[in-house]
């Protein structure tokens, strides 16, 4: 399977990086072809520019080579894995910007003749979200876990009918023990092997 792993954390020694490494290793050992997009490391620009916004509904909405190449990867991806810390109940700006700039019309979705949005990623069979939260579980539920909604609903409705969504969450990371983190990495490893 072709798998795209998207990682959004500024610190190379972060726990999120350890998660992404664990996930990539497990996936590769299962024989999958994995592309890791470490958004901070490749210097991805979060904000959609005025030029990109103006070109959004035109023939060629992806203006930068990096953005176009990510769109090309998505066309063949059968599984998408997102690894990110939840900040203010949502995606970090760099990941939110990646959605806005890469999943443009023709990649993430298409407009039909009536201007309605139709799925553009029907070949995607698995969506996986792996996130760390500063808050404990009840608080995350109270604020609606908006990053998860963006992936499990807004992105999900642009994939195929039979796409499966899995979510792996480590809550209250600031007070978690080393043992809890190791258990979580083990869970990530197991889940990726059974994908």
């Amino acid at each position, binding site marked *: 399977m072709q798998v795209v792993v998207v990682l959004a*954390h*500024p*610190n*190379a020694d*972060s726990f999120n990086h350890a998660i992404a490494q664990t996930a990539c290793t497990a996936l590769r050992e299962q024989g999958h072809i994995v592309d890791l997009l470490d958004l*901070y490391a490749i210097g991805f*620009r*979060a*904000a*959609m*520019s*005025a030029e*990109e*916004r*103006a070109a959004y509904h035109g023939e060629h909405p992806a203006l930068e080579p990096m953005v176009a190449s990510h769109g090309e990867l998505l066309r063949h991806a059968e599984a998408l894995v997102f690894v990110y810390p939840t*900040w*203010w*109940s*949502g*995606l*970090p*700006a*760099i990941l*939110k*910007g990646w*959605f*806005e700039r890469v*999943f443009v019309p023709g990649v993430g979705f298409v407009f039909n003749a009536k*201007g309605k*949005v139709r799925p553009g990623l029907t070949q995607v069979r698995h969506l996986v979200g792996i996130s760390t939260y*500063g*808050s*404990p579980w009840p*608080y995350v539920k*109270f*604020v*609606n876990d*908006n*990053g998860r*909604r*963006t992936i499990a*609903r*807004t*992105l999900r*409705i642009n994939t195929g009918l039979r796409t499966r969504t899995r979510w792996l969450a480590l809550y*209250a990371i*600031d*007070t978690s023990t080393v043992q809890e983190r190791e258990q979580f990495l083990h869970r990530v490893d197991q889940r990726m092997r059974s994908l």
Partner: protein
Amino acid sequence: MKVYVVHCHPIASSFTAASRDRVLSTLADQGHEVRLTDLYAEGFEPELSAWEHTNHLSSPDLKPAIAEHAANLRWCETLVLVYPTWWSGQPAMLKGWIDRVWVAGVAYELPAGSNGIRPLLTNIHRIVAITTHGSSKLVNAVQGEGGKRVVTRSLRVLCNRFARTTWLALYDIDHADQQAREAFLDRVERSLRKL
């Protein structure tokens, strides 16, 4: 009243910019004291840096890049956010502003060893969000209204405990004619006159 307006759209001739102009003219008319931040115009960088992440609990005095925005947040009684909803949430530019400016010492404090944050923006009694959606209200409901929850829950809990939120949204904007757009601007004006 002291009102802080934050505007986020890359294009100067956009409907969002027209909404901002209506907000500013109404507020001036009512004699309010207004401060404006135009994130795209000032070239705000939405990516939280590795240094900022490592020092996320450090004093905001060490973060001169956000000093002016933080001072405005501590100054205002009403916060007005004007932005388009993209991928069911705030654009990366605005999400990054929240990630970088609503930090410890500005928006909250985290007592040692705790997962529970204590709000600091008790000066804010009202948050007004003015936004546009490409999709319909129904689709937004299915997607879980992530952008709305970020404002009415994640940000709201960092403000005064009696703070009220006002949600003004134009849904299905791609199919909204001139009349519907004018009607929305009038609605924005009526709502702001009641502040």
